């Protein structure tokens, strides 16, 4: 540790050994030596996997003992997204911590409204990173915007003493420095899609072991990949590329796991375009968001490749493509297609329940024909199973039959312990003693 790992020159078509960004890692070592920061190192316990980036730097992706830095858009709107991450981690027997002592990155708000500043963004980031370090778990960032914002904030922090000094004062007030007054900075900032990328061959093994025996087959599924802008355009040098994925000319994450599963990844002409989310736009300039999503992506994907599914790796893109299809009917531009993240598709392929785990019920787009084509022919029964479960949970809670509710959860695909409030009600969290809102 401490030295930049590089791969052979002839291994990669896009080479730039003079990447400005790579200097960050050398500067981090210097700052640690001076006692300004403490680098939260990836250790053997994290079972790191090496992935390639486009500058020749090898990035270490920790795969175990991870602290889940959740995404508010995913948890609030696409709950099957994080649920699929947890489900796969449980399947692999990995250790992780999913707790309530975490804020959002607040970068969606910053990019949408400008109502923050670099010191606040850095303080929020470093407070969350300290929480992970304090608990002995390595942070895994679920949201693409959090990942992009944190990468950029790290560059600004490492290169700028004024920012470090400003944020150190705030972290001191919060009790978020080390005992000897240092700022905790993770060795690598890691997105969940990088974890999926690093785990792709294990996911393939699970698909063959548990998905295929259930009749699931993804070899006929035509996939369009949409890479999220904030994962690979913000601090572009710090995201996986691989010579085996489009000859190194597209980001490797998401595409590589689809290829490992044997799905048909098909290229299309507007692969580089954003989704139209726009942060502020999806809420307050919706004509733009839906026009862009339909005309530059959904229509192009339908006409050029007729994909069965658009695979994403971020919150906003999934929401944008998923929610802005139906309205196309108003202009005879309806191009229905399933939309889900790489990890949701991976979980489905490995046999996860489409509704109890992958929570497709929340989707507005047409996922039904995709499930049929994947060989999940009994999706109607599975959906009914979930609907009955929701109805039953509602009744039990309404009648205050909490003991039965807890028993039911035990049968109901439960893989994390739940605690109860003072009156016996199951809590939203097992680990928070003081929720901001009561459950």
């Amino acid at each position, binding site marked *: 540790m401490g030295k930049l790992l590089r791969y052979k020159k002839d291994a990669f078509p896009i080479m730039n050994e003079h990447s400005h960004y790579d200097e960050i890692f050398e500067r981090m070592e210097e700052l640690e030596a001076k006692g300004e920061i403490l680098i939260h190192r990836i250790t053997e316990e994290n079972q790191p996997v090496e992935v390639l980036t486009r500058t020749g730097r090898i990035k270490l992706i920790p795969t175990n003992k991870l602290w889940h830095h959740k995404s508010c858009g995913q948890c609030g709107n696409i709950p099957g997204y994080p649920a699929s991450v947890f*489900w796969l981690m449980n399947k692999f027997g990995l250790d992780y911590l999913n707790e309530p002592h975490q804020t959002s990155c607040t970068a969606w708000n*910053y990019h949408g409204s400008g109502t923050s500043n670099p010191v606040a963004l850095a303080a929020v980031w470093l407070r969350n990173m300290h929480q992970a370090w304090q608990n002995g778990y390595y942070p895994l960032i679920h949201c693409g915007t959090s990942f992009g914002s944190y990468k950029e904030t790290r560059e*600004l922090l490492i290169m700028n003493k004024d920012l470090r000094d400003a944020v150190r004062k705030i972290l001191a007030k919060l009790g978020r420095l080390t005992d000897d007054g240092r700022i905790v900075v993770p060795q690598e900032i890691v997105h969940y899609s990088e974890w999926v990328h690093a785990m792709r061959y294990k996911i393939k093994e699970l698909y063959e072991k548990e998905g295929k025996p259930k009749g699931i087959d993804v070899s006929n599924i035509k996939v369009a990949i949409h890479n999220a802008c904030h994962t690979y355009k913000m601090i572009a040098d710090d995201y996986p590329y691989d010579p085996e994925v489009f000859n190194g000319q597209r980001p490797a994450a998401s595409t590589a796991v689809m290829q490992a599963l044997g799905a048909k990844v098909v290229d299309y002409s507007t692969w580089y375009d954003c989704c139209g989310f726009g942060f502020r736009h999806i809420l307050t300039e919706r004509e733009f968001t839906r026009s862009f999503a339909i005309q530059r992506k959904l229509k192009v994907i339908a006409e050029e490749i007729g994909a069965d599914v658009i695979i994403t790796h971020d919150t906003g893109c999934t929401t944008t493509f998923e*929610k802005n299809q139906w309205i196309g009917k108003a202009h005879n531009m309806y191009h229905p297609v399933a939309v889900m993240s790489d990890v949701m598709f991976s979980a489905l392929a490995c046999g996860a329940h489409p509704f109890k785990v992958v929570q497709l019920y929340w989707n*507005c787009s047409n996922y039904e024909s995709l499930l049929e084509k994947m060989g999940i022919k009994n999706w109607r029964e599975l959906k009914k199973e979930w609907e009955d479960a*929701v*109805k039953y949970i509602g009744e039990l809670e309404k009648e205050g039959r909490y003991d039965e509710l807890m028993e039911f959860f035990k049968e109901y695909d439960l893989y994390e312990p739940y605690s109860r409030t003072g009156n016996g009600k199951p809590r939203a*969290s097992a680990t928070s003693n003081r929720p*901001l809102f009561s459950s």
Partner: protein
Amino acid sequence: MDGHKYGYNLPISDKTKSVPWEEKKRIVEEVKADFRFKEYLFGCLNCGVCTASCPSNRFFDYSPREIVQRFLEEDVEVLYDMMHEYIWACSQCFTCWIRCPFVNNPGGLVAIMREVAVRNAFEATKDLLKPYGRVLLKVMTTGNQLSADMLQPDFFPDWGPKMQDNMENLRAKRMAIPFDVGKSVKTAWEVSLETAMEMYTIWRETGIFDMLEKIDPNLFNVIMDIVEENEERYEELYEEED
């Protein structure tokens, strides 16, 4: 002069014309004084790659190349004018940044300009951010930017009929989410009170609450009521423990 001979097509607004030159200069200098400015602006070939690949350029009168060029030209009048509405068209996707041969970051420049526009409480900015108030309320008070209860079908009729189904019996559906911390309705995940306290400290120490007060005093009052209520509750719990 209306507009700019080098390509800024929009006429300079009467409002901008009426503002004293010194004030316009002060605002532009505030943008240039940001420590990120020198990291985001280098040379410019005027090649237009940024604008050609800009999603906002396809639907708005907006060009990242213009942002870069106006700064290089030090065109105070146009830059000041852009800071009222023009910059809010940017999607913040940073396609311009990855594409630029000079590694300019027009999206980053826009982020600084927006921040300065908010800090100086421009009227146009106040109007633009009004519909965004729900997100500000949520993020400032809970640390989450989005939660399940914000997605009422009435607000999103264009998302189709499945939205109506999704939001029925919401509490039970959230209870059926199979991972810890994720069952909450008012927040994306259950945020602990201690965490919210830390976040309020960050907002105070970094001037975010002050910024909000200037841009939307009514929203600020609502936010502070919730913040103070939570702080009191935290104090009470703290005292109980002692």
